[in-house]
């Protein structure tokens, strides 16, 4: 409970810090005041306060909440995938979500093909990313059920599907105009700038589903880390359970990253950092990863906003900052994490 309290407080502090950063200067304490005033129903009565309230509440807060939600989804999904597939290299994108989503974005940006014809602009791209991200995931889940695939086979099927989608994406990019390429490229690096109050609900929903479902499945995830005959001997069908976990992870990750682009590193490494400090019991690993993922992506996005005059992609920051930090923890670790 103490750990949860500390993490929740840290998330709140980082949200306030995140919303205080931007081209229009608003201090940390002022941001806190603006948020509290808004939430307690105090109506700003002068132009300066109205402007600050608008910037913080309508422009920056959705982005900060998106960072927390997407960070939590990616970290929880990564932890669940690693346990389910018994592989420390698994991450939320192991089912080919990123390659499918990239392909969806690519055919929208370059060829103007939208799966939902009524949608255009960002929403058309998001819808394409979401639908296409689920295609490789569905293929993997179906293949793994039909062919009774082992965890290693699931990963290999994922790699095969990923290569197919990546090749198709590359092929389309060869014929793309430079401005279209930029859209695809920026999306592939991950950016939280598209978060608004209109779409934050999707990311919050994916976060809630992922965290609640996987926390409830903590003990089952522990069992899935054993070999399949050990899993069956305690009454769990490992193939069915794997398919369910893969489906939930794929759906939640696809929903989250369709809005933000593929943000790497969080899903792969945050669970390992938590394992080093807290062990591999998924009952604790899952909620702790959720908090740590939220904290990490909020911090990374804050750095991205400070470092870039033109909004650096957060995916770049997660790797540049996170990589060395992870290496340091790895070298100093006293506990075997995998």
């Amino acid at each position, binding site marked *: 409970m103490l750990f949860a309290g500390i993490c929740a407080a840290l998330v709140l502090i980082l949200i306030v810090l995140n919303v205080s950063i931007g081209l229009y200067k608003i201090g940390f304490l002022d941001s806190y005041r603006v948020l509290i005033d808004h939430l307690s129903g105090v109506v700003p009565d002068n132009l300066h306060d109205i402007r600050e309230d608008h910037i913080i509440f309508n422009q920056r807060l959705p982005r900060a909440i998106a960072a927390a939600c997407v960070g939590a989804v990616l970290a929880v999904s990564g932890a669940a995938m*690693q*346990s389910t597939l*018994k*592989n*420390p290299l698994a991450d939320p994108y192991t089912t080919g979500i990123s390659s499918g989503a990239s392909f969806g974005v690519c055919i929208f940006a370059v060829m103007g093909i939208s799966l939902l014809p009524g949608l255009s602009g960002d929403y058309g791209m998001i819808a394409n990313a979401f639908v296409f991200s689920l295609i490789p995931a569905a293929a993997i889940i179906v293949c793994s059920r039909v062919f009774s695939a082992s965890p290693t086979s699931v990963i290999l099927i994922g790699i095969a599907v990923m290569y197919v989608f990546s090749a198709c994406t590359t092929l389309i990019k060869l014929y793309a105009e430079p401005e279209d390429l930029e859209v695809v490229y920026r999306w592939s690096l991950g950016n939280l700038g598209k978060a608004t109050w209109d779409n934050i609900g999707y990311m919050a929903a994916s976060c809630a589903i992922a965290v609640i479902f996987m926390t409830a499945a903590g*003990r*089952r995830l*522990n*069992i899935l*880390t*054993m*070999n399949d*005959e*050990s899993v*069956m*001997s*305690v*009454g*769990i*069908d490992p193939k069915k359970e794997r398919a369910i976990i893969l489906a939930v992870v794929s759906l939640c990750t696809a929903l989250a990253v369709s809005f933000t682009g593929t943000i790497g590193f969080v899903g792969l490494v945050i669970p390992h950092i938590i*394992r080093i400090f807290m*062990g*591999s*019991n998924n009952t604790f690993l899952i909620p702790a990863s959720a908090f740590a993922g939220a904290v990490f992506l909020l911090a990374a996005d804050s750095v991205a906003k400070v470092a870039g005059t033109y909004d650096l992609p957060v995916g770049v920051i997660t790797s540049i900052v996170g990589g060395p930090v992870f290496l340091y923890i790895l070298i100093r670790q006293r506990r*075997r*994490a*995998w």
Partner: protein
Amino acid sequence: MPVTADSVSFGYNSRALILDGISFEFQDGKFYAVLGPNGVGKSTFIRCINRILKPKEGSILIDGKDVSEIPLKELAKTVGYVPYSAGDSFPLTVVDTVLMGRHPRSRLGSLVKDLEKVHEVLDQLEISDLALREFSSLSAGQHQKVMLARGLVQEPEVLLLDEPTSNLDVRHQMEVTKILRDLCVSKGITVIMICHDLNIASKYADELILMYDKKIFARGTPAEVLTPDNLRAVYGVESTVIEHNGRPCVMLDDFIKQD
């Protein structure tokens, strides 16, 4: 709870059978040791009993019900299984590992009761001091005791064990096998254990099943099964069998050279 194997055949493909028409009835509360050389289908046989493998032909009945029709979680309440290897991929503590065995009986809010049962079994096996150690850091012998604990917390009526004493020293082999023997007597659990130590099997088991060439070669009391002729035919060894404390004791003389 009686377990009946009725003409069970199994093979990963139809041309190469691993089990060929095995029939046997395991009676309630008895201790069975399954013996035989490597690769004769002992592990395959007990994996068919708890549905890890599905027989190509024949059926396994537990208390008269076909195991293929019993939901996996219900089956795990009745049949416990101690595999040869757990194949853990991430380091969990011994408590977390043993707690897995409570899955078939766990409900919302049952964690405290489940943990009490885990500690009770750890005490019973005298491995409470390992409770917070990482499972993957244990010695092979400790590893096997933890897996046995995981099987026991399932509170099964039938316990299947795949070489649970293979990595234990003589004293610990006897300790573990005696615990299994006591479970048979005190709780009426049917124990079916794959074992390579003929004398341990002879000392503690009620009945032995000697497998050879995909079939049951001999079955019966230790005195009926552990004969020089059977051992020569199945293992290709010459032996002398003496009686010790009312049980046969096998002394190996030499192995038969094959041309």
